């Protein structure tokens, strides 16, 4: 039980996928302009990442390892992720047309979110068990959503802040992200 808690905390805070491992930066900068969109994107990514971590574990353990095909890891995981994203897209389109409109092009773009592939590959590299893999995926997704929501809340305020001319727009966003990253590095002694 403690192990699982450690994995969860470490995935959310200590090894935060965005601010410590620097994966999934594109949606982090791209979808963080509005809080609503950020929450939607966080939810969709959480769903996809958890599902992708689980299914890539299954593919790895029951297909690739018995057949001695570890070198096909990357390509099969990409296949798995693409399918999960497509499935999520259909699911959201059916259940929540509004969220579907809000997410728009970012939903298919989860496919190319490096965080998703990164988590799947890390799971195999760390030889996680099934429960550990799914928990690590879920934790990383929670961490992603957390910083995405925090960051978008900050950017909404930054939009009204008196920023010096050369730093306006994306530049101050990058600086803010860097400062947030410094703060999250401070968690490294936690676990």
């Amino acid at each position, binding site marked *: 039980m403690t192990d699982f808690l450690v994995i969860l905390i470490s995935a959310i805070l200590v090894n935060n996928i965005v601010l410590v491992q620097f994966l999934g930066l594109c949606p982090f900068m791209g979808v963080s302009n509005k809080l609503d969109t950020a929450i939607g994107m966080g939810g969709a990514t959480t769903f996809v990442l958890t599902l992708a971590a689980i299914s890539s574990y299954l593919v790895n353990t029951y297909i690739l390892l*018995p057949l*001695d095909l570890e070198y*096909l890891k990357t390509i099969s995981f990409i296949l798995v992720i693409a*399918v999960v994203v497509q499935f999520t897209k*259909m699911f959201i*389109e059916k259940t929540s*047309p509004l969220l579907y409109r809000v997410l728009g092009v970012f939903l298919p773009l989860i496919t190319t979110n490096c965080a998703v592939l990164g988590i799947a590959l890390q799971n195999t590299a760390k030889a996680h068990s099934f429960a550990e893999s799914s928990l690590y995926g879920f934790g990383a997704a929670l961490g992603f959503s957390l910083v995405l929501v925090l960051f978008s809340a900050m950017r909404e305020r930054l939009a009204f802040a008196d920023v010096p001319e050369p730093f306006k727009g994306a530049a101050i966003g990058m600086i803010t992200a860097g400062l947030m990253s410094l703060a999250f590095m401070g968690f490294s002694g936690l676990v």
Partner: protein
Amino acid sequence: MIDLLLQYPITSALLALVALSLTFGALLGFAAVKFKVEGDPIVDQLDALLPQTQCGQCGHPGCRPYAQSISEGEEINKCPPGGQATINAIADLLDVEAPTLDEEHGEESELKTVAYIREDECIGCTKCIQACPMDAILGAAKQMHTVIAIECTGCDLCVEPCPVDCIDMLPVEETLQTWKWSPPAAGTAQMNNIIATDAAGEVA
């Protein structure tokens, strides 16, 4: 079986990928049927807001095609029969700034009008019948035509095609039978709390 596959790594790699792709393909095919979206729900919502006069002043054959093209990004200010109230409602639904009515497509008239055919001048050409989106004009070739007043939405579309200009748009006289209380103006407190859930602060 696995031993056999292990002897030929290329075959096993190919087989594994093909099997994976086939499984996932089947899964997605199933999902596509299971989660099939019946039309675009936003189009239905837009269609419900439009006045359903089917007048075609927006440049589309009817209200639903206009709703369809709004959902694909067309301007929302092309509906004169709906007027500013419809534009505001659509802007609210789509969460955009409400523009003013585009005068190019016609002016919003406060007065409800109805088409009237001066029957002794009508030559029975049926052109207005073909133009009418509401099927509100009665008549046949070489026979005098007339307008079914309660079906007419006053969209002006029959005026243009008439070769003898015998159609007038007459304002509808208000009689004791047709008079009704005017609806509460949009934006007032009375209008905002007209539904119980609005009063509770929920957003419909």
